[in-house]
């Protein structure tokens, strides 16, 4: 716990981390604001329709087509992109801080194993990540309520909690990645560059390849929508392109970010086709995504423990 507390405190005192956190909170607020203002006017239109229908004594009133939680889409996309950078930075700082201050020999000459050091740092970092996600969540929910005039219902709270839990698991994987690559690099900042290169590939390039190959993305608004084909029609067409689709989806699924995005979007009604379904159906349908997330997080945590064990206590070139 001492190590976790040390990690938590050191991270929050890092100026660059504070700046990145600030950027994330501000962009989350703005993206939720933009979505919520639009939503508020649509909600007002729907309420007006419902009042008029009720006044005319109509029995069958169309349910609201609006999805409150989908207003948080931008927030989750920023967690996916910027949150991962913040997590990598945290991992980098864990290693570089001890190297720069040459405090590793002071820690390791005490009854602390490398496993305890790794776990303590990890727990502290998860604390920082959870704090960040919590602040982002609060900003998002308050934005939707105050600006969008539609508060998150008790039924939606569990789905939101699950989505933010997935955010914590996702970011913790990148934390471990940042720590591993930095620990294995002779020059810590080179490790940071390599970790950011991996981030670029996993978070931006692989999903972008998948999106580019997606037939539906070829014209604005969606190809199948323009052809007035529903989801079943889309599936019918794509049956003839199984190899292409396999390559496309495999490319996407190689990306941890895509699994996170699919799970978070399913929980927050971002995709229209998921909206009619309840939580248990959604969880069954996105089980693989969550399992992959957990798998990556666990494997990278194990890698981090190993990297801590193998890290030289005395930095090279220190005493020649």
């Amino acid at each position, binding site marked *: 716990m001492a190590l976790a507390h040390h990690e938590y405190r050191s991270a929050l005192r890092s100026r*660059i981390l504070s*700046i990145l956190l600030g*950027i994330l909170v501000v962009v989350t607020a703005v993206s939720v604001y933009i979505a919520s203002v639009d939503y508020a006017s649509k909600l007002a239109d729907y309420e007006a329709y419902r009042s008029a229908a009720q006044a005319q004594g109509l029995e069958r009133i169309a349910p609201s087509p609006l999805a409150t939680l989908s207003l948080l889409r931008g927030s989750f996309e920023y967690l996916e992109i910027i949150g991962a950078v913040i997590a990598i930075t945290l991992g980098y700082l864990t290693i570089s801080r001890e190297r720069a201050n040459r405090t590793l020999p002071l820690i390791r000459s005490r009854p602390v194993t490398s496993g305890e050091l790794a776990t303590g740092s990890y727990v502290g970092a998860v604390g920082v990540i959870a704090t960040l996600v919590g602040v982002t969540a609060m900003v998002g929910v308050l934005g939707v309520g105050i600006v969008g005039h539609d508060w998150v219902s008790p039924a939606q709270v569990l789905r939101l909690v699950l989505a933010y839990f997935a955010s914590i698991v996702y970011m913790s994987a990148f934390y471990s990645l940042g720590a591993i690559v930095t620990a294995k690099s002779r020059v810590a*900042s080179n490790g940071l560059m390599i970790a950011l290169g991996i981030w*670029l590939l996993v978070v931006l390039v692989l999903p972008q390849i998948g*999106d*580019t190959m997606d037939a539906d993305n070829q014209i604005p608004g969606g*190809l199948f929508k323009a*052809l007035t084909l529903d989801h079943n029609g889309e599936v019918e*067409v794509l049956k003839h392109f199984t190899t292409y689709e396999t390559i496309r989806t495999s490319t996407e699924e190689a990306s941890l970010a895509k699994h996170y995005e699919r799970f978070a979007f399913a929980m927050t009604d971002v995709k229209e086709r998921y909206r009619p379904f309840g939580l248990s159906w959604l969880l069954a349908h996105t089980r693989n995504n969550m399992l992959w997330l957990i798998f990556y997080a666990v494997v990278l945590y194990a890698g981090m423990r190993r990297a801590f064990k193998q890290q030289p206590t005395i930095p090279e070139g220190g005493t020649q």
Partner: protein
Amino acid sequence: MIATIAMHQFLSLQRQRVLLVMFITMLTVTILAGVLGWSSHHTIVRVYDEAVKILASTGRPAPPNPFLLKPTLSLLSNMVVYIPLIGALLALILGHVSIADDDSIGIGRLVFSRQITRTNYVLGKIVTAAAVLVLLLVASMIVSVGSLVVVNRAITGGDFGRLALFYALSWFYLMVFALIGMIAVLVTRRRSNALLSAMGAWLVITFVYPQFTSGLRPTQSLNPITDPASTSQTFFRISSRLRPFSIVEQYKEASGHILQTAPAEAFAQTIQRVIPIAALALGLLLLTTLLVQRHDFSRSAQSE
């Protein structure tokens, strides 16, 4: 002196394999853009045909195939995404190592106790960064021409000219980020802070600013084909006035017009889009030469 610094910097980049990594990355990305462009176009045309069959079987009419008349250069439309995404990060790292490597080993004490001015020093670094970016983009252009020839069996003079213009525009765009990489080192004390500050600037320019001005979500910025975002009237009536200064959007739109993947517009209008990018590059160049005068080069080797 500028030539001495420039040649030395080039040698350093070679020796540290930074050049090699950048070349491999750029060429891989260009090949990927070509392969993706060809395979997705080829497949999507067939997808459309299959969709039309299904519609016909239900008695519904289908609109004409919009993919048959796609211009030749649309094969490379993904480059319009990869340049701001990957190219900009490469440029950032290039600018960063140009100054950070010297700073972190305290070499300033050896350099500036000699007869070289700080302006000449930084101009030498900028010349190298500019030259390296030219080499990278020329290599990418050669691969692009190769892709076009392989797919289309020929490339017209007009298409070649447009491609050259696209890469010239890309050079301006990437110079902005090389300079941001240098500036970040000059205004921060630690190397890691410099890298992360520069990354923060890239994130804001590439993802955050377009959301302010056009309502584009971050993942929409990754797609060469942008779905117009539904936007709040009040907010965007004000913020859209800042859109001309969103260099990533101006770059993408200018590139789209040059590569003919966007609806045609007057050439003068395309040139207007380039002005903010060029102006920013010039402004950052001046800022870099100013900041280098104030930077403390008397420090010894820095911790990271």
